[in-house]
Structure formats: structure tokens, C-alpha cells
């Protein structure tokens, strides 16, 4: 697969002059600028406090607060502290658009940030574009890179599902088996996995020999397992919702001790304790993880620092309650996005809402993001044209009720052809 991520054009000459002009003006009204420069930078945090995203929202909030505390302790952005203005979107697209509007018109926020659920991103992004409010989402949806959104919407802190899924194919085909049966919920989420993975596996010389779509309302799965072809070498499952534990239990009962290789996405069991009774069947199976939940033998100092800041132990659970498992595979995106906002604002010499387009251009100009305290999940490469970041993916094996890292994909495994060039859109 080829994928070119070019260096973004730096700030245009005209904009640079504008910046210099602004600086001269600033110098001439020193007192005003002094007042401005010490004022906090307001980040409108669109958080799923209620609704179906609330479990994720709680950890997104915790990670965000930890990132803000760190950034402020280190001097803030250009000497100005970050201030979070959190608004609940109810995990509701219509409400999401209203919240974005409140950030821009009521709270005077510099940017909006933090949305996870794709339908809320979809509902909010057009309004952010109309209001010219930079909107940094942490959604892992392919909607940004697909070109369906706008220049004001960026996803620089978390990879998208298309790249995640396709990056699994080389390891699955080479290590686990080439004949794969997919079991997925029969709606858009499952269909994305089906389509992205089927194509990627084919490119690796493998084949999806059966696609078993489960109706979303199903809560018992025994009748579906006999549909798994006998020559299946790998089962790829991506079930979600309250019946996931039942699915795992029934699959375990169906196969008994002689099971094929099994591969899943941790989305199914995000924030679920893997040592829970009934999940023993998952032993020796594999999972995609956006960020390894359990501290690994080769844990980086960055991951260690990040865990401590968020208050997460080596098992990915809260330090205050070992049973309170975090949404570790996703929430790093909040931390990393805020650090990118900091880097972008500093590069653009961001002074206020008038510099929003400069901020976007500065982020669009970013490319390599090495692993660091700002990027504890690992190194990444940002594609300014598609407004989407690409990074390593992790495949872990369940051993003794814990996820042990088995493989780290290359960033190249995650790349795909550009589907949009947002930089051609005007501000």
C-alpha cells in the first residue's frame, strides 16, 4: 500500500505578514496585549456526560483534566493557562451542534475538543465549520479522513478505524491464519469492520470465508455458531453492547477446548475487567488495542508518566479502585490532542480567536510526532491534507487474564490513499 504524507506548506507569506503586522500592532497597544496574553485559552470540551457514551466520557474527562494540569504546570500555552469549559452533549448529535454553538458564541472558547461518538461528530462538525471554530475530535471515526467534514474539523490525536482495521490484516494472515470468519453486529459499525478488513486481508493473500452478521437486538448467539465453516482458521469478532459477555461465554461453550485462533477488537470489552468470570474462554485469544491497557515489559517512560498523571494502575484500572477499568485503548487521544493544540498554538503564535485559521494551518503543517510525554501511545504521523493522524496499532494476546503485547504494527501498515484534501478548502 502506498501512501504519501507530504510536508504541508508552511504558513503563507501573506499570512506571515499578517502575523508580523499583528505583532507590531500588539506592541503598540502593550497594556491590552498584556491583559490578553495572560488570559486563559478556553477549550470547549464536548463531553459525553450522559447518554450511551457516558462510560467513555468519564475517562475522557479524567484524561483531559490530567493533560490540562500537566500543560498548565509546564507553563501553559505561550504562557497562558488552559481552561476547560466542559459541556455535556448527551451523546446526542443535535445537542452536540448546540454545544459547539455555545462554545463559540456564549463561552468565547478558542477551540472545541474531545468528541468521541461519530454521530455526534457528524452532527457538530458542520456548525463548527459555519462558526469557524477549530474542532478537534477524538473519535477514531473515518469521517474526518473520508472528506465528509470540513477544514475546521481535525483528528490529530487518535487514529481512525479504517487504518486500525486494515493494519490488523498482515499479522492475522501471517501469524494466525488466512481463512477468516467474521462475526459482527449487523449495522454500520460492523459493516465498516467487514468491508475494511475483507479488503485488507485479500491484499495479504487471505480470504474471509464467511461473514456472519448478527442483528443488533440479539442477546443469544448459539444459533449462529454452527454457521462458522469447519475450515475456519481465525474468527474475527467485533461484537458490542450488553450481550458481549454472553457472546464470549456461548462461543466458549460451542468450541470447548479446541477453538480456532480468535481475534477481536477491544472495543467489545473496553472498560471490562478481563479477569471477570465467564471470560476465561478469551485466554490465548488476540485483541486489537489502541494503547495497551496493561503495562508491558517494555513499557516506555512516557506511558508510565501518562498513567501516573491520569491515575491509572498497571492493569489499566483506576488507582483508587482496581475494579474500575479505564477506557485505556481510546482515552490517550484526549491527552495527545491537547498537546497537539499546544504545539499548534505555539507554532502559530496564537493570540486569540482571530488566529484560528493560523492554528489550523499550523496543525496541518505537522507531520512526524515522535513518542514522547506528549505522545505516550507512540509515534505518529499527521496527514495535514486529510486532517487525520496515523500511528502504531497494538495486537495483544490474553495470557493469565491479562493482555500481553504480541505485535506492534508499523505506521505504514495503517496508511491508505488520501480521500480528501481539506487544505484546498478556504477558511
Amino acid at each position: 500500500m502506498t501512501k504519501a504524507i507530504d510536508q504541508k506548506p508552511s504558513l503563507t507569506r501573506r499570512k506571515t505578514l499578517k502575523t508580523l503586522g499583528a505583532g507590531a500592532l500588539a506592541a503598540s497597544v502593550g497594556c491590552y496585549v498584556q491583559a490578553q496574553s495572560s488570559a486563559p485559552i478556553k477549550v470547549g470540551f464536548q463531553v459525553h456526560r450522559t447518554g450511551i457514551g457516558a462510560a467513555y466520557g468519564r475517562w475522557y474527562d479524567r484524561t483531559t483534566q490530567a493533560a490540562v494540569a500537566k500543560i498548565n504546570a509546564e507553563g501553559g500555552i505561550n504562557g497562558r493557562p488552559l481552561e476547560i469549559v466542559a459541556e455535556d452533549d448527551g451523546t446526542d448529535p443535535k445537542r452536540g451542534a448546540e454545544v459547539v454553538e455555545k462554545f463559540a458564541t456564549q463561552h468565547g472558547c478558542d477551540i472545541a475538543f474531545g468528541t468521541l461518538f461519530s454521530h455526534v461528530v457528524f452532527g457538530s462538525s458542520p456548525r463548527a465549520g459555519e462558526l469557524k471554530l477549530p474542532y478537534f475530535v477524538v473519535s477514531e471515526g473515518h469521517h474526518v479522513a473520508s472528506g465528509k467534514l470540513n477544514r475546521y474539523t481535525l483528528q490529530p490525536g487518535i487514529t481512525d478505524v479504517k487504518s486500525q482495521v486494515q493494519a490488523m490484516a498482515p499479522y492475522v494472515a501471517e501469524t494466525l491464519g488466512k481463512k477468516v470468519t467474521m462475526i459482527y453486529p449487523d449495522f454500520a459499525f460492523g459493516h465498516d469492520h467487514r468491508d475494511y478488513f475483507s479488503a485488507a486481508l485479500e491484499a495479504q493473500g487471505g480470504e474471509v470465508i464467511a461473514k456472519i452478521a448478527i442483528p443488533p437486538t440479539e442477546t443469544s448467539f448459539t444459533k449462529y455458531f454452527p454457521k462458522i465453516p469447519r475450515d475456519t482458521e481465525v474468527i474475527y469478532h467485533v461484537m458490542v453492547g450488553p450481550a458481549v459477555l454472553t457472546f464470549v461465554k456461548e462461543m466458549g461453550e460451542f468450541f470447548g477446548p479446541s477453538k480456532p485462533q480468535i481475534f477481536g477488537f477491544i472495543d467489545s470489552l473496553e472498560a471490562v475487567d478481563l479477569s471477570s468470570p465467564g471470560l476465561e474462554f478469551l485466554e490465548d485469544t488476540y485483541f486489537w488495542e489502541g494503547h495497551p491497557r496493561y503495562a508491558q515489559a517494555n513499557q516506555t517512560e512516557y506511558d508510565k508518566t501518562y498513567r501516573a498523571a491520569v491515575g491509572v494502575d498497571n492493569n489499566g484500572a483506576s488507582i483508587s479502585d482496581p475494579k474500575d477499568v479505564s477506557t485505556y485503548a481510546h482515552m490517550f487521544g484526549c491527552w495527545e490532542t491537547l498537546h497537539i493544540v499546544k504545539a499548534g498554538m505555539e507554532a502559530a503564535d496564537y493570540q486569540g480567536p482571530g488566529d484560528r485559521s493560523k492554528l489550523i494551518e499550523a496543525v496541518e503543517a505537522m507531520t512526524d510526532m515522535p513518542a514522547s510525554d506528549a505522545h505516550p501511545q507512540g509515534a505518529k504521523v499527521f496527514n495535514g491534507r486529510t486532517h487525520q493522524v496515523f500511528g502504531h496499532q497494538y495486537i495483544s494476546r490474553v495470557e493469565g487474564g491479562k493482555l500481553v503485547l504480541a505485535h506492534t504494527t508499523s505506521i505504514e501498515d495503517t496508511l491508505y490513499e488520501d480521500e480528501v484534501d481539506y487544505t484546498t478548502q478556504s477558511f
Partner: protein
Amino acid sequence: MTITKRSVNLPLLLAAVVVVSTNPANAHVSEQGFVLLLPTDAYIAAGIGIILATLIFLAIFHNRSAAFATASRHLFTVQNPGWLPTLTSLISTAILATLLVIGLTGPRDPLTNLLPLTIWTIWWILFPIAQGLLGDIWSWLNPWTGINALATNNKMPPLTLPTKLGHWPACLGFGAFSAFALADPAPDDPARLATFVGGYWLITALGIALFGAREWLARCECFTILLSLFAALSPFQYRKRSFGVPGHGLLAVQNPPISLGIFALLLLSVGSFDGLNETFWWLAQIGVNPLAFPGRSAVILPTLAGMAGFTVCLCIIFGFCVWLGKTLANNRKSAFWQDFSTFALTVLPIAFGYHVAHYLTALMVNGQYAIAALTDPLATGADHLNLGTFYVTTGFFNTQSTVRLIWLTQASAVVASHVLALILAHTTAQRLYGAGRPALVSQIPMALFMVAYTLLGLWLLAAPKGA
């Protein structure tokens, strides 16, 4: 602030939900997952068994059940100075005013702002439970009577509330409140909630000023009525200075008007529908994928229609049971509507039990947020309660043993409340239709209703949920 139409295109959003849904998840998905693994069928059967055993017990000992249900002892009494309830009410008003200011100007996050946490978690979830267990505290803490006493010096109000209005204004008020709580896209939004709460306080204060606190609170102010009815379930009945079997206070209510009976059924129906509307079953009825709930904005009309429809159905079915029981007892002494209202009050324990069961998990989580907000009420980083680093946890949803304990606690509340309702209904039947066979026969339809409702309540706890 105005939201322009062009910013929100609902059909487009719904289409987006269908087309792009890359991260479905569920609030407390692990709890739901463990519930589905629990032997809930066996638990439900055991619950129904307890209800049937209660019915058999009542049939055998029907001569003694009334004496049991009304058994109470005199509580020793302490004379309170007359100004004390005025003072406590004034303190309550001051706290409410402070909360409204926090709602309008404090943090925008509903789980950080003290107003939504106080209104929804402490007052709406916890306070009715306290009323049901400890008796009528609300008459001391409501935020109107104190200020009214000061303003009017307890003079006669200028107007008289028409008798024929009954409790219908309260029914309307509670219906409107329920619509806000169940269907509004953002009932937790601090500023929005502050507007509603402040507006309701003003309307009530005006009603009290015009018609007097006694009449307005007893017939129009839905929360005072709700809390008084729940307090009547408590073993402690302060006005009568008695302590007795839970519900003995309710049996003392004579000839309730039809509007009060409907109000009681409204409490039950809204409470039940608030659980039903989250189930896979309901979401399938309204064509919503339970694994990709599109948000409350997308289901406002179905929710309102469902709530209204469920209430009407409940009233019709309940009315039919009362009519059938009355016919079987061959009773012509009392009017149907009188019997309907009297029996309707006996479902209040069920409404209370549902309240406990339905909100238990929300209380366990949001109660922690309330503590966190109390220690730092203005989100300035303060720690008035000296809690140190305080992380809210939902770890109890992540183990089978704790989920089982939570589920059985919820189920116990549902079953116990039905047992109490059966006892109250049986005692009421004896009063209305006389002891012996007529009362027993009249209770057959009501007993079937209670068994079916127990089944519904336990099924709601066990059913997979997606909203």
C-alpha cells in the same frame, strides 16, 4: 442565543447515525453484560413465588390482615417551637437560591455543577426514598412555606382554589415534569435546569400567594403531593404521632378524589415507562438500533407518545380490574370512581419500589459526583470536605458479585413493594366490600394485576438496555 435551523438537520443526523457509527458503547455496559449472565429467570420466578405466597397468606388469614396492616403505636412527641419549620424552610429557600446562581454561573458540566446534582440526584432520587423510609421531612424543608409565612403572616389568601379543580393541576404539573425529565434533550444542563427550577419556584410561590400554601401545596404542587404520598408509606407518621406497619399512614386517607387516584397511577406509569424506554424491546418498537442510540433529540415524540400511551393503558387496565373486582363482589354501595381512587393509592408502594430500583445505580454513581461537587462547589479546585484526590468509580459494575448484589437489591425493592401493595389493596377491599368472601373474590383481578406488574418490574431489571 439562538440555534439556527441550518445548523441542525435532523434527517441528516439520523442518516449519519445509520451510516457512520464507529464507536458504539453503552453506559455501564459491563453491568448490563453481567446482568444478562445472571440467572434472572430463576430470580424472577422466585419473586413471583413470593407474590403468590403473599396472596395465599392473605386469603388464609384475611380476617387478620387488616389489623396487621393498620397496626401502629403512639410515638412520643416533642413540642417544636412554631418558628422552627419556618426557619428550616427559609434555609431551604436560601440553599435553592444559591444553587440557582451556581446553575446559571457555575461550571457547565452537569456532573460538576451542584444544581443538577442536587436537583436530580439528591432531591429527585434520594429525597423521595428518604421520605418513604423516614416520613415527611419535606414539610419542613420545602422552599415556599417559610417565605410565605414571613410575607403573609399566615393571613387568609385573597383567592379560593375551586374545589372542582381537585388535584388535576398537580397531574398536569407532574406530566410536564416527566416530559422534561424523560424526553428533553438536556434536562441536566445547569442553566437550562436553573431556568426550569426557578420558573417552577416562582409559579408555585405565586400560586401560594394567591390561593394559600395549604391548598396550593396539597392540590397543585405535584412534588409536595408526591413526597407526601411517599411519606404516607413510611413507618413514621409524625402528624399522627404514630409508628407502625409501612403504609398504615396511607390507609388513613379517606375518600381520595379521582384526581388523586390518577396522580398515583401517573407516578407508577411514568416510573415504569422510564425503565421500559431504555429496553431493546422498546427501541425495536420505535425503530431504533439499540446498539447505536441516536440521542434523546431523535426520540422526543416517541418518548412523549409512549409515556402518554403507557399511562392511558395502565389507567384502563387498572380501572378494568377495579370494575371486575367490584362486579365479582357484587358491590353497589360505593361509586366506581370512589373505589378506583381508593385502590389507586394502594399502588403507591410499587411506584416507590420502582423508584428505588430504577435509580439505585444512578445514585451510586452520581452520588459520588455530588460529593465531589460539594467539596468543590464552584470548580475552583477547593476541597472543603478534605477528600484529597477523589476519583469517581463505577468498579462495582465490573464484577459479577457486586452486579448480582445490586440486581437482587433492586429486585427486592420491587418484590417487597408489591407485597406491601397487595396487603394494602386487600385491606382496602375489606373496608370497601366487607370482610369475608366478597372482599376475597374482588381481589382476584387486582391480584392478577399485581402479579403481572411484578413480572413487568423484574423483567425491566433483567432486560437488555440500549439507551
